[in-house]
Structures are given as structure tokens and as C-alpha cells.
């Protein structure tokens, strides 16, 4: 497509699609903060509000003790491109400032236990009074009503994987359920939250009306589990996991190869299946009655039979050979990629899907781009996270017009706060005291 010519090099010359939109978040950990980051990448002004002085718990998290310049790498991945305000929402003056900000914002997002916003006098009804057009999103484990919500059950990604049946469906048959290595219910839920928000913005454009949205992370992932539900309804039996075999598509599986690496392939369409059989040197298989039609091939015993034939062949080839045969014979195939591939793959680099961020505070580092490429309004990941309360003065003066003296008073009352002298909360040790600052601090 010629509209994507030189896309990565020229994207900074174009606006983001959500330019002019203002979003507030009162979120911590992953499910909450991941969503507004997508809006920030799409060009919205996102203000992350943390409770001073410790802020978001994710600042402490790390894989096996690894930090990037004292910062939690997942905090950096989940929270880029935002402005950082530290406001103690337990205090009534802070609640009033929050309302003043809401009056000048389009979207506000929370991931608190049910009814907490109400207790803080910043529930939907309170905010609606100052801004009837506000899009108000609450995300948590079980929503705002129903038994689990009212039992005040805590939740997180692993709990949602467990309670939705997602983990159950993701192991090999006969093996215990398997947890995903990524926080799928957190980040997928966060994405869906922004679909809700943007649909609500469209409605607001037409009617002027805002709305209240509630989302449960266990429920949300059930939407993505597809065939499992009607399968159980139609067969009146349990859906069961099948490891790397896709039960709906045949053949579609991951195979061990000669070089000890793995390759995944799929070839359900007639042309693809014929191509695969030809690649295996067994073109006659494509004509066998048990394999010829996709619906016939999908029958479990037939599926297992063809997958056994493919597995016996795959182990005589390297993973790269299988990928190349896929290109040649027109079926889908790939060597299993690793983080190394993700980082070094020329395709991802050329597309700018993986790129170097040039951050004033943290320097240059590698991260993912927002994986939506738009020809006229490219989304952009531009900078990373900031210390707790880093942009307080900027936000208070720019949006609310508060004077330096008024701001000093708010600090004095503990309404505004700044970072604790602790890993992940304070600036990195090599910080020059100025870079990244928009206004004084």
C-alpha cells in the first residue's frame, strides 16, 4: 500500500487521531493503567493520578530482580506517554481539584474496588454534575454489583485466568491448567475498555451525552473465548484443552523440528492443505476421504492422524526450512519467535513496531510501538514514565490556572505530593535534575 511508504520515518510529522482529547486515570497495577496508555499513544493527553508519595504498586515490580535504571520495566511498558500528577484523593480538597479537572476532561478511568469512588465523593453522579458529557469507566475484578463484587473479592490477572476457564483451556489434555506467561486478562481487558470509551465518545459526539461503564476482567476475557460456550451448550459436555492443536482448524499445530526449535503451521483451505501435502512429498494425502474436506479432517481421530503424519515429517526439517516451505507452497508457517527475534527482526524494525525511545529522563531504550498503523494519524509511543507527582506544577497551572503560591499551599496541606525517596518513585540516579521537566518541580 503506497500510503504506508516511509511510514516509520514520517509518522512524527502527523497528528495522532485523538489529539485534543483529555483523559484522567486513577489506576494502579496493570488492568487499569494499560488502557489509558493506548489513548496516550493515539494522541490523547493522559494524566495519571497517583496517591503520593508511593504511587503505583507496579513501580516495585521486576522480573527476577531486574530493574531498568531503578525503575520497574513493566511500569515503563504499561505507563508511557502520560503526565504524572500526585493527588491525595482521601482529602476533600483533593477531591475538589479532581472534580475541577474532570470538568475539563473527556474521559476518566478507575480500577478501584466497587463503591470506592462513591466513598471518595467522586462517583459518577458527583462527576456528572460538573461534566454531563464525561465518559466514566470503572474496571475491576467483578464489576459493581453481583455476589462476587459485593463479597469484595480481590482480583488480578491470574485470578481472572483461573475463574474464566481461560487457563483451563490453555494446557495440554490431561495436564493441569496452565497460566499464561503474559498478563492477558489485564491487558486484553484494558484494550476492550478503550473500545468502550471510544464508542461512547462517538455517541457523545452525536448526542452530547456521556455515560458510565463498568467492566470485570474475568467477564471480559470470556468474550474472547469464542466457540467454548456454544460447544458446551450444543454438546452438553465440557470443553477440553488440546495443547498447541487448534481444535477448530486442521491442520494447525506447533511441531518440534530437527534443530530442536519449534515451528507452527496451519493449512485448512484446500490450496493450503494441498501445498502442505506437496511440501511433505505426499500429495496423495490431500485426496484421501478422511482428509479431503476441512470439516471431515476436523473430526478428532482424523485430525490426530494428519497431525501425526506432519509431526513425523517436521522433525526431519529445521524450523526455518518449514517456514520457507510454507512460503513456497502457500501455507502458513513460522519458526517460533523469541524476544530476541522480536528485538532484532528487520521486519519489525522496518515497520517501527519495535523501536528505540529517546527519553529525556531515562535515555534511549527499546520498546513496542502501539501496534496500530494509521496512514493519516499514526499512533506514537514517545516517552516513558516519570516519578510520582513529577508534572504536578505543569498540570495545576496549565489546566487549572493555579498560581505558584496556591500550588505551594496545596503541597502544604498534603493535597499535592511528590515522590518518596524510594526505588521506582524517585528519578533515576543519573538524572540531571532538569531533563523531562515541563515546569519547575
Amino acid at each position, binding site marked *: 500500500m503506497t500510503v504506508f511508504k516511509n511510514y516509520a520515518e514520517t509518522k512524527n510529522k502527523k497528528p495522532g487521531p485523538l489529539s485534543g482529547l483529555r483523559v484522567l486515570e486513577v489506576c494502579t497495577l496493570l488492568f487499569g493503567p494499560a488502557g489509558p496508555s493506548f489513548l496516550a499513544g493515539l494522541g490523547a493527553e493522559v494524566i495519571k493520578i497517583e496517591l503520593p508519595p508511593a504511587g503505583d504498586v507496579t513501580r516495585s515490580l521486576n522480573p527476577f530482580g531486574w530493574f531498568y535504571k531503578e525503575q520497574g520495566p513493566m511500569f515503563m511498558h504499561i505507563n508511557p506517554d502520560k503526565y504524572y500528577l500526585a493527588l491525595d484523593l482521601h482529602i476533600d480538597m483533593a477531591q475538589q481539584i479532581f472534580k475541577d479537572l474532570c470538568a475539563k476532561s473527556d474521559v476518566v478511568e478507575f480500577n478501584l474496588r466497587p463503591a470506592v469512588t462513591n466513598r471518595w465523593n467522586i462517583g459518577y453522579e458527583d462527576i456528572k454534575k460538573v461534566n454531563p458529557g464525561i465518559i466514566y469507566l470503572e474496571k475491576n475484578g467483578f464489576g459493581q454489583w453481583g455476589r462476587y463484587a459485593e463479597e469484595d473479592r480481590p482480583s488480578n490477572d491470574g485470578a481472572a485466568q483461573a475463574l474464566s476457564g481461560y487457563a483451563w483451556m490453555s494446557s495440554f489434555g490431561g495436564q493441569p491448567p496452565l497460566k499464561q*506467561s503474559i498478563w492477558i486478562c489485564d491487558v486484553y481487558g484494558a484494550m476492550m475498555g478503550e473500545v468502550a470509551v471510544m464508542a461512547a465518545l462517538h455517541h457523545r459526539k452525536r448526542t452530547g451525552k456521556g455515560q458510565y461503564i463498568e467492566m470485570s476482567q474475568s467477564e471480559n476475557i470470556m468474550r474472547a473465548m469464542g466457540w467454548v460456550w456454544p460447544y458446551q451448550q450444543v454438546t452438553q459436555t465440557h470443553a477440553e484443552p488440546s495443547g*498447541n492443536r487448534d481444535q477448530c482448524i486442521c491442520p494447525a499445530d506447533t511441531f518440534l523440528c530437527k534443530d530442536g526449535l519449534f515451528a507452527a503451521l*496451519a493449512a485448512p483451505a484446500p490450496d493450503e492443505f494441498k501445498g502442505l501435502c506437496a511440501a511433505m512429498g505426499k500429495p496423495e494425502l490431500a485426496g484421501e476421504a478422511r482428509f479431503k474436506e476441512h470439516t471431515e479432517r476436523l473430526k478428532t481421530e482424523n485430525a490426530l492422524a494428519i497431525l501425526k503424519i506432519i509431526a513425523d515429517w517436521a522433525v526431519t526439517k529445521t524450523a526455518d526450512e518449514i517456514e520457507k516451505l510454507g512460503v513456497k507452497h502457500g501455507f502458513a508457517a513460522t519458526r517460533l519467535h523469541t524476544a530476541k527475534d522480536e528485538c532484532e527482526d528487520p521486519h519489525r524494525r522496518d515497520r517501527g513496531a519495535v523501536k528505540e525511545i529517546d527519553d529525556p529522563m531515562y535515555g534511549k531504550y527499546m520498546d513496542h510501538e502501539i501496534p496500530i498503523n494509521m496512514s493519516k494519524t499514526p499512533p506514537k509511543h514517545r516517552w516513558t514514565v516519570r516519578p510520582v507527582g513529577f508534572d504536578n506544577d505543569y498540570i495545576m497551572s496549565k489546566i487549572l490556572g493555579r498560581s505558584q503560591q496556591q500550588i505551594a499551599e496545596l503541597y502544604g496541606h498534603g493535597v499535592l505530593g511528590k515522590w518518596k525517596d524510594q526505588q521506582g518513585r524517585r528519578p533515576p540516579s543519573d538524572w540531571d535534575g532538569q531533563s523531562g521537566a515541563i515546569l519547575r518541580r
Partner: protein
Amino acid sequence: MADYKRAKWAAWADHVRGQDDPAKNFEKPEALDDLVVIDISSRSLAGCYCSSLLAELGAETIRIEPPGGDLVRTYSPNGIMVKDTGLAYLQEGRNKHHVTLNMETDEGREMFKCFIGAADVLIETYPAGKMDAWGLGYEELSKINPRLIMCSITGFGQFGPESGRQQYDYDNVSQARSAVQYGTGEVLPEGKTVKDMPWAVPTKAGPHIAWAVSGTFGAMGILSALYHRDSSGEGQAIDICTPEAYGRLHDYQLMWYAHAGVTAERFGSLDTALWLYGFYPTKDGGVFLGGLRLEMWKAFVDIIGKYDEWKAEEWTTLAPFMKKDWQLKYQAMINPETSKYTSEELTAKSVEYAKSGRLAPITPVVAEIVSPWKAMHDENWQDRGIFAPVQDPVYGSVICAQAQWKSTETPPRTKWACRPVGYDNGHIYLYYFGYGPVKLKELQEKGII
């Protein structure tokens, strides 16, 4: 639903339910009912998922299939078909009108252009270049309709060195190429081979999640492009590459490799970056245990009666527990303890501990790892309207998870589950082209619809 003890804030719960109970969805307006969406996706459910999300919000969504139906109609475990449709598509045909059009014919492609004149959004999943070869690339279509938002969802994207690859996009291949699958799965113990333990390999997620993630990013792109179009008046092209889209959820692992040279290996149902956080066996299955703060971990140790023996009193930081060897050591110590209880007993202990434990109200997260069968029959989700079946005029009662969110003003909703191949030809071609039965019969005879 069985009675339960109401929360102190039950009035709030009742207030919200009064506003957003899905039982009242059909009394409310729809967010996107001013839009026309054309879905011509082929072989991939990423596009169908994307158009479903828009159709659930009220967009008039026209699904174009080749005569005979798209391959996705056949996607179904064990080859089960409900009338002409497999179970995977029975979930993603929702709220869409289904027409047939033979894109391999000149007349079919001309008719497609007429749809584009009326469309706000086009979704397609052909390998890059296919639409251009048909004379239906974005450059051509935007001349017909400059307001068009065209979203392509493919395995290799619309540009970049690999984008010329003419392979279709499949969920399992995309999961493998995303780098997420590599680090997920059971650990192969030293001295064992894959032959001994064929399940101890990089393992994909069961659901079509690479497709769902890509389709959802597609919906985000489309909705943000609409926002831009409202002020600029112009449409645009959107490119989603499925391994990149799902790979975006790989979190810190790219950074970890780029800056520390570490490739995260499989860690079973533990978590490389979190403690207490993992799956543990019980007498009748297993539970997820979570406690990302030191006190929650201590509370858990107290619940299993090891507070003194393990000297939990002396722990001052979670840091040492983040290390791999400590995680494995403690996992081995926890396993026999959780195995003494049923999942329900352990869940109840955690709830009780929040009231009366020595660290109360702090308590760990304990969640039973349930089968989808148990999830589907769970009264809490049923009460929340997640599995209320759709009464479809063709397919009968069908459970379509209506689970994404609830809202006071424009909630998503499912009106029908699916339609047979070409079911809406009569209505849609009459409405958009003024083609009546005589013309349609002629087109049918020529193999165009």
C-alpha cells in the same frame, strides 16, 4: 440466584444495577448505529471479531462471503456444524447481515465498489496486495469514498520486508510468531526430552487470542479514525499485523532482552516477575494464589499454618522471593500444604482470614481454577447476564458470551447469532443497489452472488 450477604454498600450496587443491568439493554440507544461496516475478511477470524465488536454496538455490518461461504464457516471442534455453520463462526456472525459476492468476477468487483460508496468502514484480511490486484486497494477505494476507513488485519502487515508474503493469517501461527508462546508452558526437567513429556513445550493459549487481540486493536484503530474523521472529514488506511499486535502484550520481555540480554524461559504456572503469584494444586483441582504485597504473602503463610515454622515474622521485603531459586523452593514447600484442602475450603479460609486472621483485613487472593463448564454455570456470571442465550430465528437458542462491559447509555448487545450464507442477499442488494428478485436471479445464474 442463591441468597448472599449483602455488602454494606449494597445501595450503591443496586443503584448501578438499576442503570446498567443488561436485561435493559434493548431499551437503550446504540453507539454506532449511524455507521455502515463492510467485512470482507477471508479465512481469518480477526476481521470477523473486529466487525463483531462494531456490530454489537449497533453498526450496520455487512459480511461479504464468496458464494458457498468463507472458510471460517467450517471452523469448529470435531467438525461440529449447526446447520451450515461451525461453532467458532456461530460466535462471530453476530448482528451481521450476510451476503455473497464473487470477487473473482469483474461484475462482483464493480458491485463491491458500490458498497464502498455507502460504507464508513471496510475490514479485510487478505494477504497484502490481493485487494490492490483486484483494483480494490485503499488508493482506489479512497477515490470512490474519501471518508472510508479501511482496516487490514494480516500476518505480515501492509509494508515492511516480509509484507509480500502471500500467506493467510492463522491464530496459532500468529501466537507462535508473537514471541509470547515461547515463554509459556511447563518446564522440561533436566534429563527429560520432549518425547518423554510432550506437554513440556512452548504452549499457545487455547482461545483464538491472537485473533481477538488483533481484531480489538483493529476496533481501537477504527474508532479513533472515526474520531479524527469527525473533525477532518477524511478517512484513512489502518494496518494491523497480528504477531505484532499480540506481541504488544509481551510486556517487559522485549526490554529485558534488549538491555540485559535475557530471554525469558518457560516458568510453568509461576510468574517470572511476581510473588506470590501462581497456580497451586488442591485436593480437587487447583487454585490461583496471589499476593503482590509482603503482608499478603505473610497472610497466606499464616493461613496454611506455617507462619512460625517458616519464620514469616522476620521477613521485611518481598525482594528475595522474586528470585527464581526462591520461587522454586517455596513452590515445592507450598504444594503439599495447599493439597490438603479443596479449592473451596482454601477460598473460604482466605475470606475468613480477612475477618479474623492476625493480619486481617489483609488476605491473599485465592481463586479456584475452574473449567469453562463450571464458569458457564456459575450463578454470579449468570446473574450478570454473561451467558444469556440469544434466541436466533435460524439457529435457535445460542449462547454468545455478552461479556465485554456494561454501560448506562449504549451497552453492546447481541440481536442474532449468525445468518446462513447469502441469507440477506435479498434485503441488502435491494436496499443498497435496488436489485430485485429478477436481477438477483440473473446474478446468481452468472455465479456472481
